[in-house]
C-alpha cells in the first residue's frame, strides 16, 4: 500500500529519468461487491478529509468516498482560498482554531504541499462602533489562543500605503488582523487528502452519483448509485451545496438554502499585496495568489439557486468595493468569475450530526466558510462517525439547535440564510 514519498530528491530523480516513475496520486476505485463499513457521500474537501481521518485516527479503512463528478470539483475548487480562525462565538471559535492548527501541520501530515501560506488576514475598521465589535471579536480570538493584532490607522497606512485611507466614503480607522490567517492552494487540499486517504486504503469512486438511500425500519443500510447499490454500515453525507437535494432522498428536509457565491480572479501581476484584506463595510475581500492574480469576492447572490453562476449586480458591487479601498486596481482586468453553491444555514453555522435515520449522518451548512473548515470538519465528522459522539469542539453543530433555540448566529441576522 505504501506509495512514493514526495520530496525534492524524488522530484530531482524523476526529472533526470523522464518522469516515468510518478504513479497516480490516488487509486481510481470501483465499488466493492460486499460494501463498506463507512460510505462518505461527496468527494469534496470535507468528504475526502473525513475519509482520511477515519482511516488515520480511527483505523477504519473499509471506506468508500462516492463522488458524483470528479473529486474536488465543488466548492473546494471554487473558493477564494482563505483560511482564518477569527470567529466570535464560543460554539464556533474553538472549532475553527482547531482547523487552523490542522492547516499548520497539513503538509507534513499529508506529504503534499498545499501551499498553506500564513501571510495574515486583516479586517478593516471604519467606525468606533465597528472597533468595539472587533475588540469583542479580537478578545474572543485571544481567549481561544488564535492570535490577533489590532492595528491603528497609522499602522494600517504604513503597511498598506495603497489603501485609500482618507478620500474614501468610509475612511479606514484601523484593522483587526490575524497573522496566522492566510491562504491555501485550494485544489491541492482535495488532492492531498485523496492521496492520503487512498494510501490508507480508502476507495475513491468518481462519477458515481448517489440516487437514493436504502432505508429499512428507520435504518440506513446503504446507498443507491449510478454504479449500482452499495451496502454500508454507516453513511455520512457531506455534499455542501447539494445537501438539500441529497438528504431529500432520505426524506429529510434541512434548515438550509442553496445560494451562489461568486469569486473572481484578475490577470497575473507582480506582487502587490501579501495579506488577505477584508473590507466588510464594502462587501469585498482580496488576496493575491502565488501566480499573481488578485483573488477576490464579496456577497452572495441573494436568491436561491443551484446554477453555478451569478449575475452582474454582485459583480459590479464587488468590484466597486475593490475600487473604493484600492483605487489602483482600476486598470487591472478581471480574468475569470465563477460561482459555487453554498449550503447557507439558518444561523450561518454548520452541522456535524446524526440524523433521525439510524446510521445516516450529515455534515453541511457551511455557508461560504467551508474551505477554511475543511481539516476540522473532516476530523470532527470522522470522530462522530467512528465514536457516535461529537468531537468536543463541534458539540454545538447540532441539527436540532433551532428547535431548542440554541442558534450560533455570528452576524446576528436571524433565520434568513442569504444574509449570513
Amino acid at each position, binding site marked *: 500500500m505504501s506509495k512514493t514519498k514526495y520530496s525534492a530528491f524524488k522530484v530531482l530523480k524523476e526529472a533526470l529519468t523522464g518522469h516515468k516513475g510518478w504513479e497516480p496520486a490516488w487509486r481510481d476505485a470501483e465499488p466493492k461487491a460486499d460494501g463498506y463499513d463507512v460510505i462518505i457521500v461527496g468527494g469534496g474537501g470535507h468528504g475526502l478529509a473525513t475519509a482520511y481521518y477515519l482511516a488515520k485516527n480511527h483505523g477504519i479503512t473499509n471506506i468508500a468516498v462516492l463522488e458524483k463528478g470528479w473529486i474536488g470539483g465543488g466548492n473546494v475548487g471554487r473558493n477564494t482560498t482563505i483560511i482564518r480562525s477569527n470567529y466570535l462565538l464560543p460554539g464556533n471559535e474553538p472549532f475553527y482554531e482547531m482547523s487552523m492548527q490542522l492547516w499548520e501541520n497539513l*503538509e507534513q501530515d499529508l506529504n503534499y*504541499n498545499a*501551499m*498553506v501560506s500564513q501571510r495574515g488576514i486583516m479586517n478593516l475598521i471604519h467606525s468606533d462602533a465597528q472597533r468595539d465589535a472587533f475588540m469583542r471579536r479580537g478578545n474572543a480570538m485571544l481567549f481561544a489562543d488564535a492570535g490577533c493584532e489590532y492595528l491603528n490607522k497609522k499602522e494600517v497606512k504604513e503597511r498598506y500605503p495603497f489603501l485609500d485611507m482618507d478620500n474614501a466614503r468610509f475612511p479606514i480607522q484601523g484593522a483587526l488582523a490575524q497573522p496566522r490567517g492566510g491562504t491555501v492552494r485550494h485544489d491541492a487540499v482535495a488532492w492531498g487528502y485523496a492521496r492520503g486517504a487512498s494510501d490508507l486504503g480508502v476507495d475513491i469512486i468518481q462519477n458515481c452519483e448517489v440516487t437514493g438511500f436504502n432505508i429499512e425500519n428507520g435504518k440506513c443500510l446503504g446507498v443507491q448509485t449510478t454504479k449500482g447499490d452499495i451496502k454500508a454500515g454507516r453513511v455520512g453525507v457531506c455534499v455542501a451545496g447539494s445537501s438539500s437535494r441529497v438528504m431529500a432522498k432520505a426524506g429529510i428536509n434541512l434548515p438550509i438554502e442553496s445560494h451562489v457565491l461568486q469569486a473572481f480572479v484578475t490577470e497575473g501581476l507582480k506582487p502587490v499585496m501579501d495579506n488577505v484584506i477584508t473590507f466588510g463595510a464594502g462587501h469585498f475581500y482580496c488576496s493575491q495568489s502565488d501566480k499573481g492574480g488578485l483573488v477576490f469576492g464579496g456577497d452572495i447572490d441573494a436568491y436561491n439557486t443551484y446554477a453555478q453562476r451569478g449575475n*452582474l449586480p454582485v459583480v459590479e458591487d464587488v468590484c466597486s468595493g475593490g475600487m473604493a479601498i484600492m483605487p489602483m486596481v482600476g*486598470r487591472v482586468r478581471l480574468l475569470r468569475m465563477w460561482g459555487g453553491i453554498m449550503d447557507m444555514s439558518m444561523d450561518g453555522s454548520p452541522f456535524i450530526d446524526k440524523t433521525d435515520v439510524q446510521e445516516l449522518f450529515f455534515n453541511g451548512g457551511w455557508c461560504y466558510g467551508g474551505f477554511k473548515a475543511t481539516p476540522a470538519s473532516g476530523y470532527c465528522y470522522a470522530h462522530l462517525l467512528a465514536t457516535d459522539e461529537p468531537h468536543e469542539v463541534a458539540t454545538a453543530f447540532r441539527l436540532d439547535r433551532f428547535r431548542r433555540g440554541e442558534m450560533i448566529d455570528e452576524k*446576528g441576522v*436571524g*433565520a434568513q440564510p442569504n444574509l449570513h
Partner: protein
Amino acid sequence: MSQINRIDGGLIDQTKSVSFTFNGQILRGYEGDTLASALLANNKHLVGRSFKYHRPRGIVTAGSEEPNAIMEIGHGAYKEPNTRATITQLYNGLEANSQNHRGPLGFDFMAITDFFSPFLSAGFYYKTFMWPKAFWEKFYEPAIRHSAGLGKLSMLEDPDTYDKGFRYCDILIIGAGASGLSAALTAAESGARVILADEDFIMGGRLNSETNEINGMSGSEWAKQAVAKLSAMDNVTLMADTTIFGAYDHGIYGAIENRADEARADSNKPRQVNWRIYTKRTILCAGATERAIAFGNNDRPGIMMASAVRTYLNRFAVATGQSVSVYTNNDDGWQTAKDLTDKGVKVVAVIDSRSIDPVMAIEGAEIFMGTDVTDTKGRRAIKSITLSNGKTINTDTLAVSGGWNPNLHLTCHHRGIPKWNEELATFLPDSSVPVGMSVAGRAKGTMVLADAIVEGHNEGSSVAADLGFKTGDSKPATTASVAYNVSAKWGVPSGKNRAWVDYQNDVTAKDIKLANQEGFKSVEHVKRYTTLGMATDQGKTANVLAIGIMADNMDKSIEDTGTTIFRPPYNPVAMGAFAGRRRGMEFYPTRYTPSHKWSAEQNAIFVEVGMWYRSQWFPQPGETFWRDSVDREVRQTRESVGICDVTTLGKIDIKGADVSEFLNRLYVNAFAKVPVGKTRYGLMLREDGIAMDDGTTARLGENHFVMTTTTANAVSVYRHMQFCHQCLWPDLDVHMISVTEQYAQYAVAGPNSRKLLQKIVDAEHDISNEAFPYMGAGEISICGGIPARLFRISFSGELAYEIAVPTRYGDSLIRVLMEAGEEFNAIPYGTEALGAMRIEKGHAAGPELNGQTSAYDLGMGGMVSGKKDFIGYTLGLREGMQRDDRMQMVGFKPVNKGALLDAGHSMAGAHLVNLRDKPDTFTDQGWISSSIYSPIFGHYIGLGYIKGGHSRKGETVRAVDLVRGQDIEVEICSPHFYDPEGECLRV
C-alpha cells in the same frame, strides 16, 4: 530600419504616420495599425517572455486570443499591464514595454529557469518545498511570487473614469463579420431594434483579413457598405470596439465599449463604458478562432497562426517574413500560402499533415503531404524547421493552422455544454445555449463563407419574424463557395523537444501527459493541475488542443475525454469598468441631515452612520480633544438644554381602522389601548424571538399612528411591516408609508427644554407638564403656523422632547431653536454625547440589539405579553431562549474608579471572566458591548452581557481586554446608572 516588413495596400492609411515606442525605441506605424501590426512591420517578432520558463516569445495571433504579445502600455498612473498588442489600436505617443523579464528583453536573466525545466514539470511544487516547515512563507513562496506574475501595477490611483450605461433592443447581434452583418441587415430591415456589437475597432470580422469577393467587390468593401447602410437606419445601434463579455439571465448581456481615444483627448471622458444590454433575442455570430498544433519547440518568435499571417498581410499590409512556410491540417491553411505568393512574398514550403493531394498549387514552394513539423531552431526568432521526413527547411515565419474552433464561449455562460463534431474536429454549440440565443456562421460551425452569409441572413429574418416583425425580401450576398476540410491533428511526436499547448502559462504536451499519468484525467483536473487555460488568453487557443492531446494519451475518444466550458468574461474586463462611478466618495450615496449645513457652519465633526453623515460633536474654541467637547455637551444638556438632530431615525406613518391591532402583532407589548395623544415604547422581535428593533410609536388620532425606528433599521423594519401586512394579514385595514425623509426631527433635551420650546410653540398649544405630560404626543404648530409634531420622549433621561417639522423647515428650525435657546446656554450635541447619555441611562442601542438577544436578555421580559400572538412570541419561548444562564444585559462599573482613565480607550470589547479564572473560551462569561467615560459619574461605565447577569448584580468580575492589554475588576450593576427612577423625565 523603418517598417521593413511593410508592403502596399491594406486597410490602413499609409499616408498617416503614427509614432510610438517599444522598450524605449521610437518606431513608426500607420493609422489603422494595431500595436502588433506596427511591431511586425518593424520586424519586431520577439515581444515578450513566457510566464514560467521565460522563453522568448513573439506575436502569435491577430486578435483577442493572443497568448504572448502582452505588454505594459503607458506610464505612471496610466500604465496598463498585460495589454494585448494585437487588439491595441496604435496611436501617436503610445508607449509599450515588454514585461516579465529581468534585464533587457533579449537577455532575460530569468531565462535560466528554462534550463531547469525538467525539474519544474507540472505540479512539481505540490511535491516539494515542504521542508523545513517554516521555509514556505519565508523563502520558497516569496521566491515563487517574485518570479511569477506578469505585468507590474503602477500602484497609483487609476486617473481615468468609467461609465455605466443601459441599452435596450429586440435583437442583439454579437459579431459584425459576414454572418453578423448579414443577420443585422435582415433583422434591421424588419424594423426591429437591433444592436450590432463587435470587439474590433473596424466592423467586418475576417472579411477585413481575407481576399474573398462578395457581391463582386472585396469582402472588406462589402462590409463597409453594409455598415454604412445599417448606420443610416434609426432602429440600428452599431457598437464597434465593444466586447460582449457575458450572457446573464433573462436576456441581459454585459458589454465593454472601449473609448480610450476620446479619454486621451479629454480627461473628463470615460475610458470605457460598461453597458448592460437588455434584449429579447440574441444572434451569436462571433466567428471562429484558429488553433495551434503541438510540435517540438513550436513557441519560437515567428511561429504564428496561419490566419494571423493573412490578417497582417491583407489588412495591415505587413509581410511577417521573407521566406514563409505553412504547416496545416486543413484546407484553410493553404489560403495563407496563396495570399502570400499573390502578394509576392516567398513561400518556401507547405507542410500538410494529411495524406491527400495538394489542395492547390503554390508557386515556388515545396509541398509536403502527410508530413509534420517536429522541431524548430532559432533562439530569438525562428530560423529553420525540421520535418517528420528528416528534412530541414530554413524559414523566418512558420504559419500554423490546426483547424478552427467556433467562438462559442457565450453559449456556455449558462453552463451549456458544447458537443464534439468529428467532421470539423471541433466542439460546436448545441441546444444548451442561453434562452433567447441562437448561433449563426462560423460560431455555429458553418465554416464555408458562402453558407455562413446565408445562415446569418436567414437567422436575422427568422428571429425578427419570431418577434412579430415583418421581414423583407432581400437576398443574401453571394460569394464563391470554398470548401473547408480538416483532419484532426493534436500533438506531433517530438522526442525530447517540448511542444507547447498553452504558451503563456508554459504548459507542454508532456505536462498534460504527466498529469494524466498521475491520475488527473478529467479536463478540470488537468486544467487545475497544469494551469492550462488559466492565463490571460483563457485558453482560447489551447483548450481544445489540450483535450485532443488528452484523448490521444488515454486512448479515448474526445467525447469520452470531456469538454471544456467557458465562463464570463469572454475577454478580461478592467475592474474600474465594473465599478464605474462608484468609487471614492461616490462609493455609496451620501445622506445629509437637515441640520447639516448649519452644523458645518459650527465646525461640527461628522461621522458616517450607514449612508448618513451625522454630527459627532461640536468643538468649541479651546477644545483640543474630542472628550472635551463631548463631556461638555453631556454636562450642559443635563444641566440646561441640548439639541440633537435625530432625523435619521426611521419614521413610519400608519393609518387605518386596524392599525392598533397590527401594532399589537408587531410589538411584544400591547398597543391596542394606547390613547390618542400618547406615545408608547415598543420592542419588536424577529419571528425567531430575537430583538429586531425598538422605538416609540405615537397615536396621533384614532386611526393614525406614527412609529419611529432606529436609524440602522429604518428600511428593514418598514420592509418587515409591509411583509406582515401584504403576506400575513392582507385584509387588515392598514396603510403605511415611510416619512423618514419628509420630516426633520430634533431632540430638545434637558431641564430647560420645555422653557425653550414654549418660546417657539404657538400659543394655542399648551405644552405644560399637566397638559402635555411625559409620553405625550400631538400635532402642533410653531413660529406662527408651521405644522409640527411634538413627542415628549427622552433618550437622554432628561425632561426631553422630539419635535418634527416638514423637512423644508429643518434648517430653519435648528437656527430658531438655537436662537431661542441662547438665554439657556443651549448647545447642540452630537452622536457621541447622545451615546454617552443613553449609556448612562441604560438604553440598549445597536451594540446591544445585535441580533443575538431576546427581550428577556435585554431585561424586558416583563413587557412581553402572554395574551396575544405577536411576531416572535412562540419561538421566543424555546428552552434555549429562556435559559437562566443566557447572556443577559446588565451594567458594569470599575471597582477602581480610576481604571482606564489614562488608557485612551473604554471597556468596550473586553470579555468577562470570574475573578480567579484563567481567560479562555470555556471560562468566558460575556463581554462589554458599550462603554464610555461618564462625565456625570467621573469614571467609565459600561453596558454588556454576562451569563445569568440579571441575578448577579453586585458581583465582581474581571473585564479582560487581551487585545489592548487591560485586565480590571468591574462590578455588575443595573444598567440604569442615571436617574434609575425616571424622576427627571416627569418634571
